[in-house]
């Protein structure tokens, strides 16, 4: 059995509200694929994603592993910061990437802080 990564571009979620975004992500994850999403969810959306995940836990779906990589604004001058904030405000928060995988497939996602490692369970044929 292979590990499937499904790319979700920001354009695909841009017009969706929080609940629709979460439904879309969870429908992919519950199909045993790992979501590789452009951009990130808002903190409130992440919390809602965790709550919705918990409400859907069954014998076959045991939750998710979640990780966001976001460029930190280290050593960035004020002009660049303002430019970044303005771009986020106009175009949405499409910086960074988010990985979300089913707990039955993804054992852990470890961030440390510049690299990201995804550990999967042994995938048998």
């Amino acid at each position: 059995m292979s590990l499937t990564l499904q790319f979700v571009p920001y354009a695909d979620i841009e017009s969706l509200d929080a609940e629709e975004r979460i439904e879309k992500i969870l429908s992919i994850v519950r199909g045993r694929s790992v979501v590789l999403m452009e951009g990130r969810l808002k903190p409130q959306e992440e919390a809602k994603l965790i709550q919705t995940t918990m409400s859907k836990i069954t014998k076959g779906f045991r939750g998710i592993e979640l990780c966001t990589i976001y460029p930190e604004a280290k050593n960035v001058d004020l002009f660049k910061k303002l430019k970044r904030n303005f771009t986020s405000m106009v175009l949405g928060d499409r910086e960074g990437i988010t990985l979300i995988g089913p707990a039955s497939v993804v054992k852990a996602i470890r961030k440390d802080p510049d690299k990201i490692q995804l550990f999967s369970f042994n995938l048998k044929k």
Partner: protein
Amino acid sequence: MIRIIRDFVQRMFHQFFSQKKIVKLGLYGPPNGGKSTLANRITKDWLGEKMSAVSHIPHETREVHVKEKIVIKHHGKELNFNLIDTPGIATRIDYEDFMKYKMSKKKAKQRAREATKGVIDAIKWLDDMNVVMVILDSSDNPYSQVNITIIGNLVARKIPVLIVANKIDLRKANLKKVESAFPQYDVVGISALKGSNMEELYESLFRVVR
């Protein structure tokens, strides 16, 4: 300079309007970080009694526990608060993990069911908090998404945060790593189990609550 002026104005505003306000102080974090051990330490220090059951098995706290009217007196200052011990926030709950602790399948499934509800409730309670201490195991990787999600939600709700790096008595504890993961927040290292550094915790709490 701007920070100093802002802090001064906030302090004056709070002193003027909230002299005897009872603060709702929440303990949040991933499972097994030591939230209930810290809750017990605080209530033991100031009320002489414990408030929560503790266990090495994750998700021992599956309901929100509230201890009302705790008064901390520290260097002439006084803080009145209700302490809220919440279930650990996790993104995965697998009943088979509990069976590794020699729990029967039936009990493990029951615990998993209660734990999922506990996570949902803990997040619901976030809106009610005035101040939150995020309790992390300082021997674990601090960059976990659960930690980042909790702190992100507190910032979005403008709730003051104190990060507590617990279990500093463990050999693998790394306080510096926790501090470098959250450079913009107050981080205090303690051992809730041994009662180490509690003075600094209370002092930091006064600073954060103001």
